[in-house]
């Protein structure tokens, strides 16, 4: 999957904050020689890890947070070093940017952003005047087409039909439809015949949107992937504490990020066994 990505690409990452992030794919990017990425995300530790590895040239975001820990330390450090360029939008503007791309429209209008410094720090943004009687002046959020989208869902079939089983799809379908190629990782690949039993209205990512599927059990770890598993809060605290200190981060990276996905999962399992011993 990561072999199909190229340096310099604009890559959207699904999920929300520290929830249902395609972390196994993010970890694969950390191990790759990809660089100069433009990353688009409702950001969580996906953004933090990519910042720490120096993979991001520009970040398009509305927020970056670990949810139960409000601030993302690697993202903070990258911004405070001036290490990344940013395009900061209101959360709803980001949805509009993806939706415009998905609908092949040049822009979508909104009130969100008017009067705020989002317009000041993004001088490329323009307003548009309604052609109707109201003549309202609104922000014209430009389409944000993605070269690739990465999302993690609970179930999928081998053709790329994918299903969320938790309470929220987030914007995963929009990331897929805004992208030239979308890649789904999932907890479990199942026969197509088993998908409907998981709930028809949860079958929201369709094979026409998807270029590739991979099975990645526990692939969202340490973010939540309800109902398969919740966020690993203890591991997230360990991550956040390590991220604030270069020496501890070096040890964390060596322990968890030095090998492949199987060795990551083995180290996580070993840590869990140690904690419950």
């Amino acid at each position, binding site marked *: 999957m990561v072999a199909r990505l190229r340096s310099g690409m604009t890559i959207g990452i699904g999920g929300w904050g520290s929830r249902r992030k395609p972390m196994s794919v993010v970890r694969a990017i950390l191990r790759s020689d990809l660089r100069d990425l433009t990353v688009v995300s409702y950001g969580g530790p996906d953004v933090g890890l990519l910042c720490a590895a120096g993979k991001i040239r520009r970040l398009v975001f509305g927020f970056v947070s670990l949810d139960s820990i409000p601030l993302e330390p690697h993202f903070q450090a990258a911004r405070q070093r001036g290490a990344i360029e940013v395009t900061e939008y209101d959360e*709803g503007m980001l949805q509009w940017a993806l939706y415009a791309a998905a609908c092949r429209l040049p822009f979508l209008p909104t009130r*969100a952003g008017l009067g705020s410094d989002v317009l000041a720090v993004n001088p490329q943004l323009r307003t548009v005047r309604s052609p109707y009687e109201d003549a309202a002046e609104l922000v014209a959020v430009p389409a944000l087409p993605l070269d690739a989208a990465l999302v993690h869902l609970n179930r999928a079939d081998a053709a790329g039909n994918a299903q969320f089983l938790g309470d929220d799809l987030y914007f995963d379908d929009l990331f897929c439809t805004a992208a030239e190629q979308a890649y789904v990782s999932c907890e479990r690949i199942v026969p197509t015949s088993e998908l409907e039993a998981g709930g028809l209205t949860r079958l929201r990512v369709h094979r026409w949107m998807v270029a590739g599927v991979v099975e990645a059990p526990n692939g969202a770890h340490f973010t939540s992937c309800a109902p398969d598993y919740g966020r690993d809060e203890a591991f997230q605290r360990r991550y956040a504490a390590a991220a604030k200190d270069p020496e501890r981060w070096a040890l964390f990276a060596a322990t968890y990020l030095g090998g492949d996905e199987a060795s990551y999962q083995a180290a996580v399992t070993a840590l869990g066994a140690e904690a419950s011993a």
Partner: protein
Amino acid sequence: MTGLQQAAGQLVGAPVSTAEVCIVACAEAWRGDGEIAASPMGLIPTAGARLARATFEPDLLLSDGEARFVSGTWALGQPPPGPVEGWIPFRSVFDLAWHGSRHVMMSPAQIDRYGNANISAIGDYARPVRQLLGVRGAPGNTVNHPTSYWVPRHLPRVFVPRVDMVSGVGYDSASAAGPEAAEFLDLRRVVTNLAVLDFGGPDRSMRLVSVHPGVTVDDVVAGTGFELAIDGDVPQTRLPAAAELTLIRDVIDPARLRDGEVRG
């Protein structure tokens, strides 16, 4: 609060704490809102929203912090036992916000005289001294529906002459941006550990509405880095009613999480 005050109406045991006064002052933000979604960010506003619905504003909609509207009244830090009455994934939250049927209470790192609020970054934007969350939904929220703010520590570094990154839109910024920015802008109140403020001052600037028990007007002025509008004698923030105190203490926050956010 140094606290000899008792709840209005009857004696209820322990003295009223500042946190309890703040919860009631936050609840008051939603008074009169009717059948809209109350979206509190943070512990004291969340307690306030639940108190408002349990008492004088029963039609409010409240989420479980994830994707469900739930009925009933439940404790901070606990899952809601009440029946689910709606599905509200993030996409629907944006729909709700842009429809206007929502009143949010956010917690800014900086807020200025005209209600511009910053939750994004402190210092020079290109290389901030302190990167915070990002603007989140604050730009869209403020220009679409009622907004209030909660400040747990009323200090000059929060109440600044000019915020570094306008995330939540203030009245002066909206006026400068045009009628579409100002049309639905409705900044209701700012509740702090010292006082309640609104935007009833000249040119819709911040005005001191009431001071909490044990707090002087001078305390509030000293904690504010810009000129506040003050009309004559400033009243004291109202105390919790006995029934409100019972709800706060027994139902909404039996674990006393409120004392970790506001002391005294």
